[in-house]
């Protein structure tokens, strides 16, 4: 119990630190008035424009000092009010953008993780159960290659081979298409190439870790015991040896969750998926700081929550670490 309270305190401290960092950085970036009002923000002559500027300043507390603005923002953020998009006409709330963009990125990353685990587990088991065979060596080299291939390069290669030359899979994403379905006109299929671009390097990392851990587990007495009980080879590998060999994969899953958003950003660019990754880049370039803040906070929170989940999963995987 004490442990989880400490974890929670740490999480909150981290979120505050990250938000301050982002808030501070964004406050140095240009004047948000230009985002809101356009060129008239610089007008000090026309009384009509000056009045507008004054009104906007008051509405968004831009005339207040940075610390006060931070506190106001934090108070709103906790109550679920993310503020408004400065750089979009009419200043719609940031939550609209989040509602539109977030599901797409979640679909992409969840699909990628499912693919990554779906590839890595059988692959790692195969490699470990034939350790040092030709198959194993070839797959170790393949995994190494994928780990070393930058995400954007892999995306381009997949796009070129499967999207253009073989023309098997759609090379573009259309946000208005329905999700469920199995034709090129469905986003489920349009997400295959982007998801593989995210999944292959992750799968290779998992495979390497799983292979090492599994080889160690296969030397354990209880594996021999399971064989002697008459369990089939498949059952021994998947039913007995796999679970105690998943710890490193789980740990790295937590660590790479943060890298995933970086990957999503690249993949969304290559395949033109209007998700959170693209939204962050656009918002930073347009200096739209409520959007940047909201998205950075969402991503960071997701990362921290995922790591708590990973911690919980340890105790599911291994009853000995239950507190």
């Amino acid at each position, binding site marked *: 119990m004490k442990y989880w309270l400490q974890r929670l305190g740490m999480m909150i401290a981290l979120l505050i630190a990250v938000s301050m960092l982002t808030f501070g950085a964004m406050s140095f970036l240009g004047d948000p008035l230009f985002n809101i009002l356009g060129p008239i923000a610089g007008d000090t002559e026309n009384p009509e424009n000056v009045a507008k500027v004054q009104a906007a300043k008051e509405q968004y507390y831009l005339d207040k000092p940075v610390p006060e603005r931070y506190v106001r923002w934090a108070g709103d953020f906790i109550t679920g009010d993310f503020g408004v998009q400065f750089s979009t006409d009419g200043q719609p709330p940031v939550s609209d953008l989040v509602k539109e963009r977030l599901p797409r990125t979640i679909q992409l990353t969840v699909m990628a993780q499912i693919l990554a685990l779906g590839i890595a587990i059988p692959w790692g088991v195969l490699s470990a159960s034939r350790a040092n065979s030709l198959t194993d060596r070839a797959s170790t080299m393949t995994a190494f290659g994928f780990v070393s291939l930058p995400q954007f390069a892999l995306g381009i290669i997949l796009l070129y081979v499967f999207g253009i030359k073989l023309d098997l899979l759609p090379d573009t994403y259309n946000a208005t298409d329905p999700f469920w379905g199995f034709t090129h006109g469905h986003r489920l299929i349009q997400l295959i190439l982007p998801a593989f671009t995210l999944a292959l390097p992750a799968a290779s990392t998992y495979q390497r870790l799983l292979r090492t851990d599994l080889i160690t587990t296969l030397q354990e007495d209880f594996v021999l015991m399971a064989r002697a*009980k*008459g369990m*089939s080879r498949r059952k021994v590998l998947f039913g007995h040896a796999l679970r105690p060999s998943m710890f490193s994969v789980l740990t790295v899953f937590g660590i790479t969750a943060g890298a995933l958003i970086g990957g999503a950003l690249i993949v969304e660019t290559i395949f033109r998926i209007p998700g959170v990754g693209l939204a962050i880049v656009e918002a930073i370039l347009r200096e739209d700081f409520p959007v940047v803040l909201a998205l950075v906070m969402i991503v960071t929170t997701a990362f921290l929550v995922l790591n708590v989940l990973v911690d919980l999963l340890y105790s599911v995987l291994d*009853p*000995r670490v239950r507190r």
Partner: protein
Amino acid sequence: MAVNTPLLEVENFNVGFKTERGLAKAVDGVSFVLNRGETLGIVGESGSGKSVLNRGIMGLIASSRVVETGSVIFDGVQLANQDRQDLWGKRISMIFQDPMTSLNPVMKIGKQINEPIRKHLGFSKSQATERAIELLTSVGIPEPARRISQYPHEMSGGMRQRVMIAIAMSGEPEMMVADEPTTALDVTVQKYILDLLRQVQLDRGMAMTLITHDLGVARGRTDQIMVMYGGRIMEHAETEALFANMRHPYTEALLASIPRLAHAKHTRLSPIPGAPPDIVEPPPGCRFAPRCRYAQQQCITESPAVIDDNGHRYACFYPVGTDENAEALATNQARGETATGLKIGPAPSKTDNDGENG
């Protein structure tokens, strides 16, 4: 099922491991017969090849680095160099040395027992659970219904070994291989587990091989005992005959090296001098000669054949209790060392000399 019909017939069985120096002959020309419902004790120091022999019979050490030759007939079927996977758990079970590492740490006890029951007996999940509870009760585990939802780390070593026995019994096998089942346990629970094993074996009419380094453990819990050294059989007899008329110097030395409760408190133990032999390039003579206090020139140059004396088998030129033996000892004592250069005391006390074989 008729007792006294052969269940396992092993003939000239050899197991070798390929090493950089050559073939390490872990098991060298072993033959024996095990009847249904009987227990065979296999006794020897570590490195004597007793565990390898059993795993070899089970077919659990097949690998590209292992060379197995000879014949292993189980219930009339030749097993040597065959895949024995469908026998495991169902017709032959195995109990491992260390219950702390031999149970899956992340799987509930119940599931670990259910698995073989469902596989070998075709039971449904609820039937299997019922059977698992019965089995746990029969090995003396209190509150079995609660234990099946526990993990191994929540149990003591003795409890875990009982669970292992329950698992080994679950497929209703005809034979059980118990590989030093109590070595890793507290002395206080050792006797209980050994008696439990014997009880289970007698109740169910299973055949069993009990591997141990302790002759005393085998006494009273086995029908026959085979003493191994350097991968070879040194002596093999019915348990009572063996203790009544011990023939091999190694058996004698083995017994003298073990503490006995019956002994007076300050009796000195006689550890066997030297170490187990090199099995890659073994000496041409008797494997035990370098450590034997009776060793003569013949023991170094010639390998003694196994002599079958009315079912009491032994491999020695100077068997204990014979005139040749006494003469050999006297010769060695006179010169202060054996033919292999082992130093022995010139004037051993009368009691020490007679040891256990009187």
